[in-house]
């Protein structure tokens, strides 16, 4: 890890530790989605196993949008982004630091949400449960990797919250499908999720590489 990447990451973690803006808003939002879905569908038994993966992924996806927007909103609040652009450190390191920071924030939310989720959906993992430790981070990385890039792209727009959702969600669909299918396969134990996990890994590699290569163009745009 280079020093600039570390510097950006420590700064983002320190700011979040003091403000808790992203984590608290994500927790409330995703918690609300999980509870509302459980009330709306009254999930029990096999039905619960079928929809749980989808609910978890959608709750994470919607909740993370607020964190992704805040990640860049901090940079433009007092034109700090201009000071970043004036510095000789590569923009790609700022991007990667933000992806790692957002990844940690979303993971914390998922860890807190997991027990609530298990209780409300009365879940019993019938497949290889340890694979969730692979699926959730890969899916989360796909979400925050793309989300951080597109949030930077939308940052100068007046309707940036709406714009981020409009750009991010369609592009995230392949990863969302893979994440939901893999999670459902693990929860129900009916089929092997390996193919979906490989798809998620491939998606992550391709989109993270493309974002790293293109980020400087977005970063230094007027």
């Amino acid at each position, binding site marked *: 890890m280079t*020093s*600039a990447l570390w*510097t950006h990451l420590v*700064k983002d973690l*320190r*700011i979040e530790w*003091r*403000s808790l803006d992203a984590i608290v808003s994500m927790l409330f939002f995703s918690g609300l989605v999980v509870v509302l879905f459980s009330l709306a569908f009254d999930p029990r038994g096999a039905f619960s196993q079928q929809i749980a993966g989808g609910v978890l992924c959608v709750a994470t996806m919607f909740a993370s949008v607020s964190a992704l927007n805040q990640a860049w909103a*901090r940079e433009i*609040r*007092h*034109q*700090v982004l*201009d*000071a*970043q*652009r*004036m*510095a*000789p*450190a590569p923009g790609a390191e700022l991007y990667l630091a933000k992806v790692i920071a957002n990844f940690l924030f979303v993971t914390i939310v998922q860890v807190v949400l997991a027990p609530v989720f298990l209780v409300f959906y009365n879940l019993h993992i019938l497949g290889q449960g340890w694979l969730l430790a692979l699926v959730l981070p890969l899916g989360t990385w796909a979400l925050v990797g793309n989300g951080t890039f597109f949030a930077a792209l939308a940052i100068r727009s007046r309707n940036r919250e709406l714009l981020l959702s409009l750009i991010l969600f369609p592009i995230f669909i392949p990863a969302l499908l893979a994440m939901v299918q893999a999670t459902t396969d693990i929860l129900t134990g009916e089929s092997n999720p390996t193919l979906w996990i490989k798809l998620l890994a491939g998606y992550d590699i391709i989109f993270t590489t493309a974002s790293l290569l293109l980020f400087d163009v977005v970063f*230094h745009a*007027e």
Partner: protein
Amino acid sequence: MPASATEAAGSTHSARLNQVSKLFGSFAALRQVTVELEPGRCYVLIGENGAGKSTLLRILAGLLRPSFGTVKVFGGLDPHEARERIGYMSHAAMLYDELTAQENLRYFAALYPRRACMSPAEALRQVGLDPDLTRTLGQYSQGMRQRTSLARVLLPAPELLLLDEPFSNMDVESARQMVELLARFRQGNRTIIITTHQREMAAPIADWVLTLHAGRLASFEPGKPTL
């Protein structure tokens, strides 16, 4: 100094703008500005709101690209390529509210690994702030934020210093201290450009006074520096 005069004298320059225009849609913020800035001089840029002062500074900082014309710094470099040698202070603080002044400065110093940055504590002392203050920047007064912002800009010892309204929100005594600090800074053969509505505050270090009117360079007059 107008470009032709320095070309004749054969001097090197810190920045040279040649026929620079900047359009935002159909609005021309700058119109065919040609000017050359010498090292070790302080230029005060004045003009009414919307005259193009901030746009000119942002172009020199490499944050905006001119629609027409060319901008070169330090003898022929693109401002973007030479950005680590340029310091830009906007009217916004360009700092994080959630961090202390020292934390903000340490963060920015780490982004300039090739520059011999002064220590954050030293930079804060130079602008008259106590480096041991544990309050976050969000709890600072506007004047203190402005001084911290100046400390951030001075940190990597830039050779071209661009200050956009540095005296706004400052009391007279603080502004006087800032001018004295800038005078010392200029002695290191560094170029300073200040935009301001408070011309009298910058007068003690103004080697030249440039006036922008509706995006055009209306006048370029020698100042009467006393520092």
